[in-house]
């Protein structure tokens, strides 16, 4: 059970860094509070439901998981440069042990994060239904996309570059092109098209679908997300295996 051993180690490594805890669990909550305040000050005549809790909750649940890319990327990159990974590469661990060992803890963390964000949203007025549970699961599933991104960039780049790409670029793209912070349908055009092609918007829609019981709408969105995830993971595995068999670390 090397996967479990390695997953345990990675969990410790991530949780013992307080900034991770802050960004992973606390940051979506801060946004929730801020955007709820903004929402409260929008006059009802404006008819702007952009930041209503029904839209905000699934959006922030998705946005929070974008940090999983940062965590997985930084951890892998740090391991590679500290030659700790070299020692494990010489051990009987297989590439599957590594990839799943990195992914598992982040999946669990995404579950926890989604649960916190969505239950906190209930305090802010979201209706508490059993659909919250499948919504948490769908959120965690769509977080795999980000974990895959992190593993891909973490296999190739140093910590600083991973911080820039996963921490700044990816979170921004995911934030803006998912419709969490801007009304995509209102803007339309190329912006909306880009959002449609990329998976982030679909993650929010998938979470929304289950959260509000429209399970029929789930599949098309979920297919796109999982399709992207499979491709990103495949790339990450290829790059990782090359590093493992002696590509320049």
């Amino acid at each position, binding site marked *: 059970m090397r996967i479990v051993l390695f997953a345990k180690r990675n969990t410790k490594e991530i949780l013992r860094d307080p900034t991770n805890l802050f960004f992973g669990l606390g940051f979506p909550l801060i946004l929730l509070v801020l955007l709820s305040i903004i929402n409260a000050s929008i006059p009802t005549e404006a008819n702007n439901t952009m930041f209503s809790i029904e839209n905000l909750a699934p959006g922030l649940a998705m946005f929070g998981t974008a940090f999983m890319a940062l965590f997985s990327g930084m951890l892998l990159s740090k391991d590679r440069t500290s030659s700790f990974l070299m*020692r494990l590469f010489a051990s*009987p661990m297989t590439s599957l042990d590594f990839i799943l060992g990195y992914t598992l803890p982040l999946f669990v963390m995404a579950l926890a994060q989604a649960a916190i964000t969505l239950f906190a949203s209930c305090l802010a007025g979201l209706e508490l239904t059993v659909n919250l549970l499948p919504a948490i699961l769908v959120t965690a599933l769509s977080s795999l996309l980000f974990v895959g991104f992190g593993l891909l960039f973490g296999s190739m780049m140093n910590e600083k570059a991973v911080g820039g790409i996963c921490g700044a670029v990816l979170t921004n793209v995911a934030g803006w092109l998912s419709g969490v912070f801007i009304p995509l349908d209102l803007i339309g055009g190329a912006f909306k098209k880009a959002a449609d092609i990329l998976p982030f918007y679909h993650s929010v829609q998938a979470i929304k679908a289950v959260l509000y019981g429209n399970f029929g709408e789930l599949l098309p969105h979920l297919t796109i997300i999982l399709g992207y995830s499979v491709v990103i993971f495949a790339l990450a595995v290829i790059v990782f295996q090359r590093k493992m068999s002696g590509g320049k670390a």
Partner: protein
Amino acid sequence: MNAITITNMSKKYGEFTAVDELNLTIEQGELFSLLGVNGAGKTTTIKMLSCLIKPTGGDAVLLGDSVKEHPQAVKAKINISPQETAVAANLSVIENLELIASIYGKDSKTVKKSADKMATQFRLDGVRNKKSKQLSGGMQRRLSIAMALISNPKILFLDEPTLGLDVLARRELWTCIKSLKGKVTIILTTHYLEEAEALSDRVGIMANGKLTAIGTVAELTEQTGTSKLEDAFVMLSGGAV
């Protein structure tokens, strides 16, 4: 039986040849020191033998398994203390030791016991619950070596193990290495010639990726007409001094 049989093993990086058609056999239980100036190809050789990089030519067979054909089988029998200290920064000393022991398939009882034993042997008992990133450089080094020993490998690679160790720790490591002699096959690299002299059964000297001399310390000094390994080393490693 030979523990390690290397035949025409080479490693090229583009046009550059880091290890050039190496041929070498090492007996079971032998302690073999690989010497050579910076960039001679020692670490590259160790990396190929421990399946960290693939040879671009030739092969090596470790206790019956080829590094090219059956790296997984080789990996189960070896362990390595890399040239750079390799520990998990946010894990404690004991957690690091236990992680490695269990990755090599020891049951949980043995894991606990051997981690305790290693911590004591490497004088890390006082810091056993400290995160390894909070240890001094030499302590991290000792932990890194202990992590190589804890799996009871049949073949052990020690790449400059005593780098950065204080005098006491170095002596203790020597004693520990000596106690493994005859049981574990060890390839060691070092820039301290007295270390090679004190520990090795045989010494090999590398220069520009090639093995230029091989033999016991006595044989090498005799061959070069010198009285000290250091003088023999200077002559055999391409130095002009």
